[in-house]
């Protein structure tokens, strides 16, 4: 019945089998359930007489699994025929799942050949599919995807079974047969084996431990025999190297796979070591054995079972024995040795290379030891027992180190030496002696026990196969300890300092410091610490090294305290206590943080870092020492600054505790303060307790004297030394010395009267008037300082023209008469000025901008290097107008050059000394002829030269253009680019400007130049970005640091890349005015300034931009728009549409639109009304723009390069030299 149920039904789809397995669990059918239970029961008591039933069930289960697999294989074949990779992938998953099941059922580590067959099928087909490129192309995308996935997974999967697949390929039939034969064999095993398989390794290990546990051996053998004896046991002499090698490879191949008994593997390998043919082979197997032993405990948190650990150590020692015995064997993990390297026997005289890494193994063993100590409860006997194993590791490390030194691998030896150092460094001499004695003792025990071991060995040999390769114990089994721990440390650390890598050296150094501190050699430890500069680099090291550093510092603090160096002790310890996380810092327990919960992951990590209990620094002692140090320093300090709370506090921790104590309603009996300190039981933990307490007493007296004098000096006129000395039980000389010191240091305003031997206090009390006068002067200087700072902000450090500019623009917006008057005035002035140049030319329109005429000199006076920005803006707008009215104008604006015109309209620009003339003749879109427009502007006095663009008009017109050059325009002719096709002309023009451009840039990036850029934060072409991002405000020029240098380099590289950046004005077919605005509130990390910025576009071209601090972005943006509007109106392009101001801040928009005034918006009230007004008259509109599309971000935030470049593109900033 059961078999009927288990039988696969017809199609045998995936779903079915899933259902089956489900059914197996839920067991709807009572009969099934019964069988199920029976099966389970059978497993449980294997020696039940119901063996028949068991057999049947097992068979049916097995059959079922195999049938399933068979069906899958069939399916694979089908899928293969129709080239359906998606279903093939499914099949592959399925067959893998089935394999697991089969393996579980058969409980063998041997992979069924059916599976292998499937794999081979897969492989063949895959190769075929890949070879057939055409077919591959035709595949559907999902199919192709599946194919690729399969390709990778199969490759990965097949690696495990490489050998088997190879075997199968060689002889598919036989393998299959074998597979067939195999199953009954295994079955037999299954039924025959009378012991629970999980019990075997344990009993086995016990067997090895005790040696005389005969029954254990029997059991083990019975199991092992099944696995191996067929070949080995029967005729040992016939065992060949190949056989062992094969078996070894097999065992290794299954390592780490699911369903592989880890203990079992260890057993098998142990057995193999005994039958190994050559020393090299034995070594090879031993290495695998050790790593298999490491694998016994899979998790990271748990530790290796102790007996396994011990065996592991033994194995390592055997490895060393072999290595010492056969010096021609070298261990290496760099090269993959030959397959048959280990075949070379002991008589082979070349070097034999075996794969392995001794250091890694030793380190792992140490780590496991450490972990086991972490896990074991320190208050149990077990912990102590475990600690006793320490010498065992010590001897191993010692031997490995010696071996490595012998073979000349000092680097590795240093690593091992570090492990030894880490075992010793925290041990005071007493503990060290104890360990030494223990080691000697255990050796004696071991001698005694050695015989029993021998017996065990003998027993082993009688029962197990005799070891083919005898390894005598060559390396010493007894650690050698020097008399003093210091000598040992010196020996080890000097090796490490010589050969170790950085981390090893740092750790050794810390251990060294710790150990010196432990021996009360404060000055040596301190010098070591200072010389190593570890305190500077420690934060870059790994956490365990940081913990070690903390431990060393704590011990150093204790040491300083013991030697009476209170301030030093305090400075060592205070940092540990500042965060209140001492436990965590020293890794002596997990501290519970009140403020943030740790994730379990964090907690686990932390647990893994914990120091084993025996390494702990007593926290109570540490705290007591810290607080006493703090008290001795803080109390006089408090007395000095009793009325001045601002003054420095030495120990916050102590202050806090003191405050808490004072707050308590009932304080404990104060008694005599010193007695309290004295009675602390922690002193029991100190060596030389008496002398330390004595020292402490003396220190306390001194500090008490100081405190007394500081506190009460006001009340005395004179104070005799004698009295003082008596009061504090100090010798007169000592008291004299202390008081003298205070006088010299100006702590105490007093002097000695030598004949009478008393202190004369001459603290001068100021009269009320005097005190007031002092206060007044102080206030005055504060006032002066703040004035200076304010001015500096406006003039020196700040944007000089920014506030002014703002006022201008706002005035434009609100239309203050006075200012507009100025505008008018200037305009007329400009006109008058232009009159000379352009008089007599009918049809010319003369335009000027208010600030051009008079402003230039002022600009150049105040900032030799700055450019008249307003003029620039105006110029830009003019250019823009040109571009929009001329037919195909393309005008390039570059800050560094001034203006480059490269148009297809009839435009040209000449720069003559201070004046720039723009002349253009073009047509508006409407076809209106503007005639020649002569624009007079003052831009630069630096660059001489001119640019002219070629014209695509008729030659006659071009000629006309040339003739329109104002007289005296020599440079124009000099540029020599007036003729020729436009492209050519452009090139020539750009070339002729290369040099001035360079020098411009060069001057711009010199430190001074940079500084100016930063200070004024004016818009400066494409360099804008760096000026806003650059944190190097002038203050940093006084104390430049590496960060700033890096920033400067960044700016330089930016500028280098931005040489050719320029704006190109294109025609976009409209004349809309748009603005983008954004603000970054207090975003500057250095001075918390806020940044806001805006861009304005006219006719789709960027004309003005600005970034600055402390303004509310939107208002400013609107002001700029209004200004633009006025300017455009002035030159005859009055915007018809409302101007758009894009803002990505929803709330700002809401406030602007909301007619209700809230309290919270009071501070922006003025601005709000202003904006609202403009909104109401539909001058401006504020549409929303998504943050992602907000262009101004590049002015106000640091944005990623991609985004930055993107925005630049949108702004129309491109490389003007790039070919068009």
């Amino acid at each position: 019945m059961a078999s009927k149920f288990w039988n696969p039904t017809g199609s045998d789809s995936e779903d079915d089998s899933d259902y089956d397995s489900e059914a197996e669990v839920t067991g709807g059918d009572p009969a099934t359930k019964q069988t199920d239970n029976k099966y389970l029961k059978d497993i449980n008591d294997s020696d039940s007489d119901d063996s028949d039933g068991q057999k049947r069930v097992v068979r049916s289960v097995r059959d079922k699994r195999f049938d399933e697999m068979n069906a899958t294989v069939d399916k694979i074949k089908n899928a293969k025929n129709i080239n359906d990779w998606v279903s093939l992938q499914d099949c592959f998953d399925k067959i893998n799942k089935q394999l697991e099941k089969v393996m579980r059922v058969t409980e063998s580590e041997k992979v069924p050949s059916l599976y292998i067959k499937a794999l081979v099928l897969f492989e063949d087909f895959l190769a075929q599919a890949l070879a057939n490129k055409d077919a591959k192309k035709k595949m559907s995308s999902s199919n192709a995807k599946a194919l690729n996935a399969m390709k990778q997974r199969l490759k990965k999967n097949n690696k495990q079974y490489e050998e088997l697949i190879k075997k199968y390929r060689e002889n598919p039939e036989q393998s299959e047969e074998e597979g067939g034969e195999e199953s009954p064999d295994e079955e037999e095993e299954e039924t025959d084996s009378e012991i629970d398989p999980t019990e075997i390794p344990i009993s086995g290990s016990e067997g090895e431990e005790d040696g005389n546990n005969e029954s254990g051996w029997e059991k083990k053998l019975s199991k092992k025999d099944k696995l191996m004896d067929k070949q080995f046991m029967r005729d040992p002499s016939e065992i060949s190297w190949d056989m062992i090698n094969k078996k070894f490879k097999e065992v290794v191949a299954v390592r780490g796979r699911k369903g592989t008994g880890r203990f079992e593997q260890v057993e098998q390998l142990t057995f193999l070591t005994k039958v190994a043919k050559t020393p090299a082979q034995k070594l090879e197997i031993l290495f695998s054995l050790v790593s298999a032993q490491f694998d016994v405990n899979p998790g990271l948190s748990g530790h290796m079972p102790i007996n396994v650990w011990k065996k592991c150590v033994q194995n390592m020692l055997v490895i060393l024995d072999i290595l010492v015995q056969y010096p021609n064997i070298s261990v290496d993990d760099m090269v993959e040795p030959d397959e048959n390297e280990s075949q070379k026997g002991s008589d082979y005289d070349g070097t034999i290379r075996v794969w392995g890494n001794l250091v890694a193994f030793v380190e792992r063993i140490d780590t496991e030891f450490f972990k086991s100590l972490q896990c074991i409860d320190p208050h149990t006997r077990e912990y102590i027992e475990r600690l006793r194993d320490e010498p065992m590791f010590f001897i191993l490390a010692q031997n490995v180190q010696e071996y490595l030194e012998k073979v000349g691998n000092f680097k590795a030896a240093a690593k091992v030496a570090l492990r030894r150092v880490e075992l010793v460094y925290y041990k005071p001499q007493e503990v060290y002696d104890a360990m030494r004695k223990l080691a000697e003792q255990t050796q004696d025990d071991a001698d005694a026990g050695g015989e029993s071991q021998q017996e065990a060995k003998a027993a082993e040999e009688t029962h197990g196969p005799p070891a083919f390769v005898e390894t005598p114990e060559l390396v010493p089994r007894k650690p050698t300890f020097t008399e003093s721990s210091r000598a040992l440390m010196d020996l080890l650390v000097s090796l490490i300092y010589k050969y170790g890598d950085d981390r090893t050296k740092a750790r050794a150094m810390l251990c060294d410091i710790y150990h010196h501190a432990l021996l009360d050699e404060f000055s040596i430890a301190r010098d070591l610490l200072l010389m190593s500069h570890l305190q500077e680099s420690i934060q870059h090291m790994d956490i365990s090294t940081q913990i070690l550093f903390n431990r060393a510092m704590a011990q150093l603090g204790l040491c300083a305290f013991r030697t009476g160096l209170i301030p030093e002790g305090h400075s060592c310890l205070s940092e540990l206590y500042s965060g209140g996380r001492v436990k965590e810092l020293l890794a002596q327990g997990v501290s519970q943080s009140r403020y943030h919960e740790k994730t379990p992951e964090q907690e686990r990590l932390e647990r893994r870092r914990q120091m084993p209990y025996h390494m702990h620094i007593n926290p109570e002692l540490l705290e007591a020492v810290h607080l006493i140090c703090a008290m001795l320093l803080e109390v006089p300090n408090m007395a000095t600054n009793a009325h001045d709370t601002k003054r420095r506090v030495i120990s916050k921790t102590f202050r806090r505790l003191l405050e808490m104590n004072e707050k308590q309603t009932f304080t404990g009996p104060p008694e005599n303060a010193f007695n309290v300190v004295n009675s602390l039981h922690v002193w029991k933990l100190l060596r030389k307790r008496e002398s330390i307490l004595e020292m402490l007493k003396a220190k306390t007296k001194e500090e008490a004297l100081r405190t007394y004098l500081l506190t009460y000096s006001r009340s005395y006129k004179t104070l005799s030394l004698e009295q003082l000395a008596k009061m504090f039980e100090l010798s007169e000389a000592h008291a004299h010395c202390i008081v003298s010191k205070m006088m010299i240091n100006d702590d105490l305003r007093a002097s000695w009267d030598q004949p009478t031997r008393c202190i004369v206090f001459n603290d001068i009390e100021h009269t009320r008037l005097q005190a007031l006068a002092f206060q007044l002067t102080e206030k005055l200087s504060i006032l002066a300082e703040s004035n200076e700072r304010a001015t500096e902000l406006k003039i020196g450090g700040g944007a000089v023209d920014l506030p002014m500019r703002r006022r201008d623009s706002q005035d434009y917006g609100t239309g203050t008469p006075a200012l507009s008057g100025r505008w008018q005035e200037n305009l007329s002035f400009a006109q008058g000025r232009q009159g000379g140049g352009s008089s007599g030319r009918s049809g010319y329109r003369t335009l000027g901008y208010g600030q051009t005429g008079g402003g230039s000199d002022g600009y150049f006076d105040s900032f030799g290097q700055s450019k008249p920005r307003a003029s620039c803006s105006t110029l830009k707008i003019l250019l823009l107008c040109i571009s929009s009215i001329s037919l195909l104008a393309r005008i390039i604006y570059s800050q560094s050059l001034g203006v480059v015109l490269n148009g297809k309209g009839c435009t040209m620009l000449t720069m003559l000394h201070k004046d720039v003339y723009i002349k253009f003749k073009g047509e508006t879109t409407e076809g209106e002829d503007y005639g020649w427009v002569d624009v007079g502007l003052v831009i630069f006095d630096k660059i001489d030269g001119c640019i002219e663009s070629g014209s695509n008009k008729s030659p006659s017109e071009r000629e006309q253009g040339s003739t329109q050059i104002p007289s005296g325009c020599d440079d124009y002719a000099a540029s020599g680019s007036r003729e020729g096709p436009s492209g050519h002309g452009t090139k020539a023009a750009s070339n002729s400007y290369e040099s001035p451009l360079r020098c411009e840039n060069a001057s711009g990036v010199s430190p001074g130049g940079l500084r100016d850029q930063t200070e004024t934060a004016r818009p400066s072409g494409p360099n804008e970005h760096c000026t806003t991002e650059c944190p190097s405000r002038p203050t940093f020029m006084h104390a430049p640091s590496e960060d700033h240098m890096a920033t400067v380099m960044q700016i330089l590289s930016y500028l280098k890349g931005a040489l050719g950046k320029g704006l190109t004005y294109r025609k976009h077919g409209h004349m809309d005015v748009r603005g983008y605005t954004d603000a970054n509130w207090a975003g500057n990390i250095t001075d918390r300034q806020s940044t806001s910025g805006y861009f304005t576009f006219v006719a789709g071209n960027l004309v003005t931009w600005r970034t600055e601090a402390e303004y509310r972005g939107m208002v400013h943006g609107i002001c700029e728009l209004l200004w633009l509007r006025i300017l455009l109106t002035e030159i005859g392009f009055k915007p018809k549409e409302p101007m758009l101001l894009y803002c990505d801040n929803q709330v700002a928009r809401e406030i602007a639109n909301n007619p209700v005034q809230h309290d919270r918006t009071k501070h922006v009230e003025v601005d709000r009304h202003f904006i609202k007004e403009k909104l109401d008259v539909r001058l401006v509109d504020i549409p929303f723009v998504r943050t992602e599309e907000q262009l101004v971000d590049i002015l106000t935030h640091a944005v990623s390069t991609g985004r930055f470049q993107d925005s630049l593109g949108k702004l129309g900033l491109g490389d003007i030299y790039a070919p068009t």
Partner: protein
Amino acid sequence: MAEYDLTPRIAPNLDRHLVFPLLEFLQERQMYPDEQILKAKIELLNKTNMVDYAMDIHKSLYHTEDVPQDMVDRRVEVVARLKALEESAAPLVNFLQNAAAVQELRADKQYNLQMLSDRYQIGPQQIEALYQYAKFQFECGNYSGAADYLYQYRALCTNSDRSLSALWGKLAAEILMQNWDIALEELNRLKEIIDSKSFSSPMNQVQNRIWLMHWSLFIFFNHDNGRTQIIDLFNQDKYLNAIQTNAPHLVRYLATAFIVNKRRRPQFKDFIKVIQQEQHSYKDPITEFLTCVYVNYDFDGAQKKMRECEEVILNDPFLGKRAEEGNFSTVPLRDEFLENARLFIFETYCRIHQRIDMGVLAEKLNLNYEEAERWIVNLIRSSKLDAKIDSESGTVIMEPNHPNVYEQLIDHTKALSGRTYKLVGQILEHAQAQIAR
């Protein structure tokens, strides 16, 4: 007083030949038994080529006329080797002795080498021979010859390591010849090279610096300006670090230099800290004296230490140099030291006292009452001390040095007007700029 003798600590850092003067001094001071010193001398000479001298010492040590056979053998060997070296270096030596030929040399090393090999057939071998010859000369005790040859060699040498060795050799030769001015020049040259050269390891550089400092002791305590220059050299961070790491005993010389040099106050405070730090690794009466005066304010202790210092100075080969005036010999440094030390004590003492009894003061200064009074009056007259003597009670009364309240007020406000002017200037400038625009 042998406990403060630094010879065993200094000698390993010196050239063999340089140790001689030290041993001579020790012999003179009778600090060790003569025999011991003579033996040390022979030991020292064994590795040099000054065999004749070794023989003499041997004779005086054992009061015999016989010399051991190995010394005689060695003498023959040395003479033979000297001959051989002389021959191999002869072409170059001849050339160098020819004044007209030497005129042809120019500042350009490459040119010189080319010229030598072209016209005189003097190649690198001869130049190398010159070096060996010079070295041998030095080892034989012919310092002036060695110095000359090494000087010439340096002009022709292209190997920088060799050049450095030659420089060391030259320095040693000049020191032994007591040409302090030239030696000082060489010292500075060597210092520059050591500071600028990149050594294989920092340890090496430190070692070189330590050697340099040890050698320089000869110069600094003999040269007129030496005492300021020793501070300049030793108190540089790099050199101070070298002292602290590997040769703390040099602190004594720096401390002495500081004490006899009154003008070095700013650096002095830092130096006191160094002394405090190095207390555990080195101390002698001189440093202890400074600790007493400036750290512990223990004036009695300072007094005691001062007396010990005198001994130390007299027994130190560098500090205890004698100056002969007629048949009267003094140790100038000691007098200077004591005078300054006394002043140190007194200064500090006065700073913390209001009234001092003259008797006590005289006692503290190791002077009698009259002398003390004179000394103090002189101090007051030269306005080094703001005090008055009350001869009725026999006390010195310090004038209180508290700054006047009004002075303080004026001080505080003095800067304000200047600052304000500056500020106004700035604002005006700015305003003008604004208007102009």
